[in-house]
């Protein structure tokens, strides 16, 4: 299931503005990789280039290579839709489909992508909701609207929706920033559990969170306002937080700036 991502020399643009420059890194399978850095440094933009969601924004484009187990996702004969099926995404704000019930939300990826039998869908919905640690809370109200859940439950519903299509990689863009500490804990536990099966990449503003959940951490920064963001340093999380090789990383992590 889980696959490795190799990025080399990646630039991303919004129109003529270069948002990130020359990013190269390897994201290992069956691990959690965290991106940290100040606001506006291009972490989210970079995350979105990994499943070709960046180009959904008008005027946005990408240069460079992203290899998923050796296959270039930006090669001209690759179907972007299939990339997004292989690499799922969870957003900052929980965004369940308001017209659909909890069940339909989880089944959305399957239903919208083709025909699956009812019994098969039932199985996948239950499995995904269990995978997202949500099943016990909501198994009696699968037909209620997804928008009626609490924020933390909605976010876990979105995770269930993302893993229901069985992606190889799961990207999470600040998945806990709108949640209370208890829901955050639930989702962090979930990440630890999911990394047995998925490659997980998470963008976070919360340094403790990065330290708690991730195996490797990349620090993004920009030289000055208006300059493109770059990767300053990437290393094992334990090393990054105890003995970073770059001064800027240390300053950021210890709270001297950012």
């Amino acid at each position, binding site marked *: 299931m889980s696959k490795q991502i190799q990025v080399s020399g990646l630039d991303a643009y919004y129109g003529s503005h270069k948002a990130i420059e020359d990013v190269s890194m390897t994201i290992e399978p069956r691990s959690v990789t965290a991106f940290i850095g100040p606001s506006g440094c291009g972490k989210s933009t970079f995350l979105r280039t990994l499943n070709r969601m960046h180009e959904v924004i008008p005027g946005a484009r990408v240069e460079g290579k992203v290899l998923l187990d050796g296959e270039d996702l930006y090669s001209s004969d690759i179907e972007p839709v299939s990339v997004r099926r292989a690499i799922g995404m969870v957003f900052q704000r929980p965004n369940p489909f*308001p017209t659909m019930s909890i069940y339909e939300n989880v089944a*959305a*990826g399957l239903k*919208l*992508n083709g025909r699956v039998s009812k019994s098969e869908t039932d199985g996948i919905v239950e499995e995904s909701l269990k995978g997202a640690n949500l099943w016990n809370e909501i198994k009696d109200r699968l037909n209620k609207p997804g928008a009626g859940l609490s924020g933390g439950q909605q976010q876990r519903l979105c995770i269930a*929706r993302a893993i229901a299509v069985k992606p190889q990689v799961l990207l999470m863009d600040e998945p806990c920033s709108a949640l209370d500490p208890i829901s955050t804990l639930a989702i962090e536990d979930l990440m630890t559990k999911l990394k047995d099966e998925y490659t997980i990449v998470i963008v976070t503003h919360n340094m403790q969170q990065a330290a708690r959940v991730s195996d490797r951490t990349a620090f993004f920064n920009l030289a000055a306002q208006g300059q493109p963001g770059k990767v300053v340093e990437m290393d094992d999380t334990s090393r990054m937080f105890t003995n970073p090789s770059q001064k800027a990383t240390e300053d950021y992590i210890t709270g001297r700036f950012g």
Partner: protein
Amino acid sequence: MSAIQRISTGRRIKDRVVQGLVYLAFALAVVPLISVLWLVIQNGLARFDLEFLTHSMRGIGARDAGGGAYHAIIGTLEQVLLASVIAVPIGVLTAIYLVEYGTGGRLSRTISFFVDVMTGVPSIVAGLFIFAFWILFLGIPFSGFAGALALSILMMPTVVRSAEEMLRLVPNDLREASYALGVPKWRTILKVVLPTALTGIITGVMLAIARVAGETAPLLLTVFFTDSINNDPFNGPQMGLPLYVFDQAARPNDTAIDRAWAGALTLILIVMLLNLVARLIAWWRSPSRAR
């Protein structure tokens, strides 16, 4: 630092005065509505009976009592239905193009401009256009369908504008959530964006229908006029309720005037009924119902 103050008498008075003005404005807006409804109901009930709803004006002389608007009701329903069948798909598809595909492009700006121009077209001009093009130039005789064509011209810009606004209200988060699941754009629009905006689009369509159901001028030039029942909108002159009211009200005797009032009442009831049906559909489709 400024000190915490009590609300001054001056502000209290201003608050009261503005509040009073708002209530007054509301009353002023409601008075014409109530008085129109009251007048139509009061005068219309005299002839609003079974005979009126089931008989045409065929063989009813100028001074005769009796007669009805069955032919006009049939005509209005058929013409408005045909007009909706033409205008709603074109209007909604145009709105989808404007919002989802043609963001800021030259074509979408051109379309937007012409939709605005169409909104301002007087209804008689729409009628004249169909009269000149369909009836004079193509030589196709008067029919309910020609009337429906003219009405659809009037409906289209209203449908485009309201559907466009509703589609723009759909949060971009939902589109992205759908893309991130590997759903193609067209399916996202069909299964996520349209259902989310459906309630609003239906309301917009209903307003457009209510607007054209009362149009008289374009019908005068396109469906012509008849006192008989004509169930076939594609063949021969038809009648419409607004035309019926216009015709009956112009006659000098009380029986005809009563028929005109009853016709107006019927028209209002039809529009209100359509609105009710639309609200029911919207309520039935809304996600909050299951809560």
